């Protein structure tokens, strides 16, 4: 019986993203690029939340920021750091545009990435 539940609840090819992986695909695939995967976990090791969500003005909701390459190259959003000074510059397309085709804009958290710890 438990196996039945597993069959019903799990998708055929489960995504096992790292907790906090954010997929951004508002413009990427429409413009022939892979979807962007933003690793929140990687960035918080180096910057506190307040840097991006206060100083740089990122809304705290996946997909709520109208980010385009033009803006990044002009120094907005990711381009505040990814400018070759604080972090590597925007010419390394594939480091961000690294997702499988067809991914939807969203954040991967909760039950998609992990199970319960101590309730």
């Amino acid at each position, binding site marked *: 019986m438990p196996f039945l539940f597993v069959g019903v609840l799990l998708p055929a090819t489960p995504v096992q993203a790292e907790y*906090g992986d954010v997929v951004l695909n508002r413009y990427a695939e429409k413009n022939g690029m892979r979807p962007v995967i933003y690793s929140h976990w990687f960035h918080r090791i180096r910057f506190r939340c307040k840097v991006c969500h206060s100083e740089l003005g990122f809304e705290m909701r996946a997909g709520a920021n109208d980010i385009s390459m033009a803006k990044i190259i002009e120094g907005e959003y990711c381009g505040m750091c990814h400018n070759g000074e604080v972090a590597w510059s925007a010419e390394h397309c594939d480091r961000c545009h690294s997702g499988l085709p067809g991914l939807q804009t969203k954040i991967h958290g909760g039950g998609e990435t992990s199970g319960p710890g101590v309730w």
Partner: protein
Amino acid sequence: MKKKTCCLITMFLCLPALAWASELPTSQGDASALRSWKPFTADGLHDPSNPALVELQQPGEAMAMFPKDVANTGNQVDWVRALEQGVIVPRTNIFPDTHIEVLDLDIIMDQTSQMGLVRFPHKAHTQWLECSNCHDKIFKKKAGGNPVNMFAILMGEYCGRCHGAVAFPLTECRRCHSEPRRGFAGSYGAQEGAGKTYKPVMDQKPVGINQ
């Protein structure tokens, strides 16, 4: 009885991983041994044919040595302790004149039905976040002034903006509902003095639901 059933059903719907509950270790100490991180090529998210994947730091490489959280819980990292112990030193600002404020103030929330009271620590939150990230966009600066509830949180509102997405998951009920309702003699809302300090996650004893 109805409430309990409803709660269980909600948890079950939200947590397909419950199916693995029987395999969960019985103590948090045991759990750390099971920690592992999926490489990019096997996470179902990254394109394995992307030549730039080798240039990215893998999650296991980045986080395996950080203070532990329970296996399969979020990033499996006790982020608050990682920061407090100086294991990581994330920058607080990019602009030199940004004002940095850390507030040590606990808030007791009592509208928690049969669950334990919620003790919200401003300190752990303001070490990471700026006041304006939450106030007043998500929470009014008034104890009791916000209709916070688990349904909204599970839908990504209030605490659920971060918890369940980038901060520890919503399966960890007792980390917020940490104040036993029975025997709590103080007043609700803002607490006087310094906030409560906590042991590292892996040293905390699991607590029962019926407190």
